[in-house]
């Protein structure tokens, strides 16, 4: 093996030499060192490098992070979950107790309600900043219903207030009802315990709900008849509509998609064949269709959906792109099995006003110029 000029000796090291890849807990190739959460050096929010994500599962170390009072260090041997309020029998669980319940695993996305909001593009050109408050994981845990049933719901139980053990004792009110069909208390993320920054050792996961409702470092569930109207569900994570009114508990993330390849910040390597790739997701259910346009939304054709299409999970789509070197404008439009269709930005602005801050599921518009440079037309 001949060392390439500029390569370090490690790159040319013969097999059998000290090998960092054999570390007890491995890490990505050093040639992938740029694939990291950004912005770097800022505690939160740290965004998923979506442009480099190859499949629907976001590696745990790349999953976006938005914290409200830092990451607590919780010992699973002493951490407990207390369930009380409108229950017949208030209970306290250790993590070991919760791991003894019948368990399930599910693939679900998490999207911060502020994903794709106006202003993030100031951080950079890439899809990491326009759409990177998004991740998807294989979650392992116990159905919320099983834990609440263990305590026994009283007849007037209608909400559960979930509280974390972070510095802000962050809390959110979650409506019961259909939430109980698929809400989980999760301890596993992608086959291992949750990462500290993503809620270790226990978090709430309400599939399809805005990310901030999925309370991390869960320490308490209080069953109530009404919401508690915490700061983070009234003064924060809400947005006045064009009439000035503020809708509370607008929690479900609607149908959305984004083309991750090609995506802004990249440059195509000349005319020829490319595979257009992206992700679609909906908090309402399963993705049924993604259409793509290469002429700015004038004509559309169906993209190929991968077979792996879990409800409330990222679904990968692809389409052939034969680029002839002329400027094109790429768009993708998702539809879900609840009848939801991703709107244009103009339609969203008409419905909700121009200050798009939360639940922004508008169709993204990427331009490719004659030099192959990809830019975000809404940045």
């Amino acid at each position, binding site marked *: 093996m001949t060392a390439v000029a500029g390569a370090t000796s490690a790159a040319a090291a013969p097999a059998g030499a000290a090998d960092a890849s054999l570390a007890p807990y491995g890490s990505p190739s050093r040639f992938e060192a740029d694939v990291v959460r950004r912005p770097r050096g800022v505690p939160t929010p740290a965004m998923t490098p979506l442009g480099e994500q190859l499949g629907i599962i976001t590696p745990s170390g790349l999953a976006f992070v938005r914290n*409200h*009072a*830092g990451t607590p260090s919780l010992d699973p041997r002493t951490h407990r979950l*207390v*369930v*009380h309020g409108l229950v017949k*029998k*208030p*209970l*306290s*669980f*250790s993590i070991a*107790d*919760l791991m*003894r*319940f*019948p368990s399930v695993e599910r693939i679900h996305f998490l999207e911060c309600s502020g994903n794709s909001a106006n202003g993030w593009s100031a951080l950079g050109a890439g899809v990491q900043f326009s759409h990177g408050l998004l991740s998807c994981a294989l979650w392992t845990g116990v*159905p919320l*219903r*099983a834990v609440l*049933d*263990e*305590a026994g719901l009283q007849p007037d139980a209608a909400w559960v*207030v979930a*509280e974390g053990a972070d*510095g*802000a*004792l*962050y*809390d959110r009110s979650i409506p019961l009802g259909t939430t109980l069909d698929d809400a989980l208390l999760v301890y596993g993320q992608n086959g291992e315990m949750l990462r500290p920054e993503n809620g270790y050792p226990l978090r709430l996961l309400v599939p399809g709900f805005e990310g901030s409702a999925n309370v991390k470092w869960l*320490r*308490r569930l*209080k069953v*109530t008849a*009404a919401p*508690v*109207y*915490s*700061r983070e569900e*009234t*003064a924060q994570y*809400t947005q*006045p509509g064009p009439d*000035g*009114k*503020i*809708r*509370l*508990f607008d929690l479900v993330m609607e149908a959305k998609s984004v083309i991750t390849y090609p995506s802004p910040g990249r440059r195509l390597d000349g005319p020829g064949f490319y595979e257009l790739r992206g992700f679609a997701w909906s908090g309402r259910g399963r993705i049924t269709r993604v259409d793509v346009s290469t002429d700015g939304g004038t004509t559309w054709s169906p993209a190929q959906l991968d077979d792996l299409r879990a409800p409330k999970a990222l679904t990968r789509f692809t389409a052939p792109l034969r680029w002839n070197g002329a400027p094109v404008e790429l768009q993708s439009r998702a539809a879900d099995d609840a009848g939801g269709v991703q709107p244009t930005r103009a339609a969203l602005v008409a419905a909700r006003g121009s200050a798009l801050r939360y639940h922004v599921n508008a169709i993204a518009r990427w331009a490719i110029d004659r030099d192959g440079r990809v830019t975000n037309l809404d940045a």
Partner: protein
Amino acid sequence: MPDRRLRGALAALALAALTFGCARAAASNGPYGLGRPATTSEIAPLDIDVAPDGSGLPDGRGDAATGARVFATSCARCHGAGVVLSPERWAYATTLFDYVRRAMPPDRVSRLSANDLYAVVAFELTINGVLARDVQLDRKTLPQITLPGRGRFFTGP
């Protein structure tokens, strides 16, 4: 023959549906006898939620003048002279009490007393133009405050 095969297939399908139905119903086939009873004394210190009707508010009282002193000691290091709140974005004054109690100051060692909390909330509501300077806040008076944004909030479609 094709009929019999079809009948067999349908029977298998029906059985599968039944089994699947049972499997779903069994998803919460407890109780499992897991966890231990949570005692009242264990829950009480954790149960800090304050609802809009004032339930959960502690005994105690405070006014803006006292709150100004508490703020200078415990809050000014990060928040300067006072926090500009945009009261039109808050639905309930109880939420402010709840938030300050659960989240401020961020170092857990110096949590505020109930009297200090009422005082700081009074101070904040006063400097943000919501509360008269001489009002004492307590578990009765705090829930009676109507913030200017109250009418903007709604739930449902």
